[in-house]
């Protein structure tokens, strides 16, 4: 059975076998100019207002030509100013640093030199293929034979559709033990009106682990509209209505990693709760670099239980129970800042990533989930709390081949009544302290989840506050085994560029209140560093696959742990 599953997995993964090499062909270039370009060239050349010349053309510095210029068979040398477009047909073009072309520079059958220092206000288009033409007085006529089709690359340019709509079928989040695979199904509409854009999504959320028998919670919905005003930067407003199953903490492992661990190995590293409500938001954006939003939501939170979601391996093993979270009706006011100056999102060498969120919640706690410490709310279980969350990462290149990266994550209760279980935090798992096993009942006080003793079912995050610091040193790694340079033989070899990584993590969670209680500190106190969990580790990171080993330092008796990541640790 296992072998069949492995074979199935491999059949999905292994890509088509290498094919035979391209047949040798000795001819180099074809003189085929795209038909649309040929037509454009002829039209521009023959326009009566275009200044035409045949043969060498030179425009000295300080001289100005008004309007468009077309040169046949060149060469073209420009040091002066052309207020329109320059067309060079079957001619090379040389631009002096003083050259100024206010319009486009269109060259067919030639090359361009000096364009990086000269000023060209419009587009520079260079076609190496020559135009085949015949002269008809001062006009030219493109030869009909031998002209190619349209400019093929335009089919591959990013689409900037002014408007559009489609039916979307898309995953709505990570594969998990509560929903299986959540799938969005519904229309998506988008309109770009130049100085902004509008978008409307209206999905029903289907869940593969749904029984379709037990009523209202099986099918969710997600309706969202957003209006952005401004190009590059501007303001945004949005509104949404939703009935979703949401993760309690999503900041540790990525959705891809969480979903694959659940779908393949029946290990779910997140906990989930039902989130239904409406939200409005307004904010500012600066491209992909920064977003600041203020939002107001009216939500109903409810506990969800784990289902017997299908997995590739360990199909008969029990899922870890999904903790029983609070049932609550809350109004939420959030201020959220996201700043991203990283040189590359997937593989950053330098820059900042900041996610900061402040939340004020108020409402009614209808039913409380089990927790280690009893929670007390005012009469009628009216609740009002303030909570903050901060994730700051700094990427530093310290040499051509090495970097030193830092991350600080902190957050939790800031004031008011105790936090609902849905807003508690932990520093447990491979994304936080990988030297320690995830959600394993430990004797005594567990400062990673703030659980004392056996803990509630599912071992939920219960900390009022957390602090986690991560530091890693990365250095490039080049592996070349059995790779004989210059050898034309096809020899299987290991050839991978990556990085070797050294890292250290320190973190813990704690409760806020009566300092005589376990793991509890006064509101202005940060626990002594000696009480933090720490680990140290090393690994090989090949961008899409990282193999690491981590050893606990604060609990030296615990064994080292091996783990796999599908992206950088942070």
């Amino acid at each position, binding site marked *: 059975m296992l072998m069949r599953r492995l074979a199935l997995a491999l059949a999905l993964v292994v*890509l088509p076998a290498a094919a035979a090499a391209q047949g040798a062909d000795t001819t180099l270039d074809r003189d085929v100019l795209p038909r649309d370009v040929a037509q454009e060239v002829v039209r521009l050349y023959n326009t009566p207002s275009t200044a035409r010349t045949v043969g060498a053309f030179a425009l000295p510095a300080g001289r100005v030509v008004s309007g468009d210029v077309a040169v046949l068979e060149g060469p073209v040398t420009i040091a002066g100013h052309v207020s329109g477009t320059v067309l060079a047909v079957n001619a090379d073009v040389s631009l002096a640093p003083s050259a100024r072309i206010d319009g486009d520079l269109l060259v067919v059958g030639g090359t361009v030199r000096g364009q990086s220092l000269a000023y060209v206000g419009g587009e520079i288009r*260079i076609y190496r293929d020559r135009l085949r033409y015949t002269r008809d007085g001062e006009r030219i006529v493109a030869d009909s034979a031998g002209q190619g089709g349209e400019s093929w690359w335009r089919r591959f340019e990013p689409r900037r559709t002014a408007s559009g709509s489609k039916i979307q079928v898309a995953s709505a989040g990570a594969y998990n033990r509560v929903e299986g695979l959540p799938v969005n199904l519904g229309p998506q509409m988008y309109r770009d009106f130049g100085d902004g854009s509008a978008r409307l999504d209206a999905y029903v959320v289907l869940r593969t682990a749904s029984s379709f028998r037990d009523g209202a919670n099986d099918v969710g919905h997600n309706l969202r509209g957003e209006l952005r005003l401004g190009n590059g930067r501007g303001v945004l407003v949005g509104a949404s209505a939703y009935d979703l199953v949401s993760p309690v903490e999503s900041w540790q492992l990525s959705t891809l990693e969480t979903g694959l661990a659940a779908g393949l190995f029946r290990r779910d590293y997140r906990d989930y709760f039902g989130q239904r409500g409406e939200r409005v938001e307004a904010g500012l954006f600066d491209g992909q670099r920064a977003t600041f939003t203020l939002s107001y939501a009216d939500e109903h939170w409810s506990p969800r239980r784990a289902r017997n979601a299908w997995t590739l391996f360990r199909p008969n093993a029990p899922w870890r129970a999904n903790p029983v979270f609070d049932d609550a009706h809350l109004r939420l006011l959030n201020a959220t800042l996201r700043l991203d100056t990283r040189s590359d999102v997937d593989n950053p060498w*330098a820059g900042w990533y900041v996610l900061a969120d402040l939340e004020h919640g108020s409402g009614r706690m209808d039913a409380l989930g089990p927790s280690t410490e009893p929670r007390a709310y005012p009469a009628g279980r009216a609740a009002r709390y303030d909570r903050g969350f901060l994730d700051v990462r700094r990427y530093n290149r310290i040499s051509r081949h090495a970097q030193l990266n830092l991350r600080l994550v902190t957050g939790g209760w800031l004031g008011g009544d105790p936090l609902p279980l849905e807003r508690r935090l932990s520093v447990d798992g491979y994304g936080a302290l990988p030297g320690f096993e995830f959600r394993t009942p430990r004797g005594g006080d567990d400062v990673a989840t703030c659980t004392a003793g056996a803990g509630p079912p599912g071992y939920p995050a219960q900390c009022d506050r957390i602090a986690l610091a991560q530091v890693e040193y990365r250095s490039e790694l080049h592996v070349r085994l059995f790779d004989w340079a210059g050898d034309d033989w096809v020899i299987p070899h290991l050839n991978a560029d990556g990085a070797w990584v050294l890292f250290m993590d320190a973190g813990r969670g704690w409760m806020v209140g009566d300092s005589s209680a376990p793991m509890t500190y006064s509101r202005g106190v940060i626990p002594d560093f000696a009480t933090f969990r720490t680990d140290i580790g090393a690994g090989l990171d090949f961008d899409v696959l990282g193999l690491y080993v981590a050893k606990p330092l604060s609990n030296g008796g615990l064994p080292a742990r091996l783990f796999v990541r599908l992206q950088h640790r942070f």
Partner: protein
Amino acid sequence: MRALWRVVLLVLAAAAPLWAQRDPAVRVDLVRAAGQPDVPAVSVSHALDDPQLQELMRNGFAVALHFRLELWRTGGVFNDLESATQWDVKVQYNLDPYGKAYNIVRHHGNQIEDFGAIRSLDSTEALLARPYRVLLPPRHPHAKYYYNVVLEVEALNANDLSELQRWLHGDLQPAVRGKTNPLSALKNGVGRLLSRMLGGTKRSYEATSPTFVADGG
């Protein structure tokens, strides 16, 4: 722990074909023109050696080579990214029976350069291996600098440019359009997702230039 070893073996077995080829080698060199300061010249060799890429091209995909050239300044505790520029080279295999050839075009800022149709793979790779000079001058005289170039190689489908990104968001739209049945779409999507994990559809390469001192003002 046994499950962990299983996934490691699975990944290694699946990745083996990807290692049985010669990878692209991108490099950035400093070249000096007469009377001019050093300028970076970027080249890539074996850009299309991958049999998998060639197979994709014969099936209508284009190959996109996305270059990002960065200028880094040294001297402090950390290196500073002073400026950057990026450009794309797209290569498509033309299946026209009367004109099988590789079409190449380069987009850089406001410049589009169409190299026309080239009949052989060797000539295509030779063209890509020609150094491309880029103007990205240092701003601080006498400071120490180096260039870093990042190359991402990706196969693009003209009918569905953002297919990969859409799948990574879980989109199975081709099935909805009736072109594929949902199970095939799901299987292909899972395969694509896993191949993405293994770097099968988009791969990244980096190189740095020697360190140099910027000319005086």
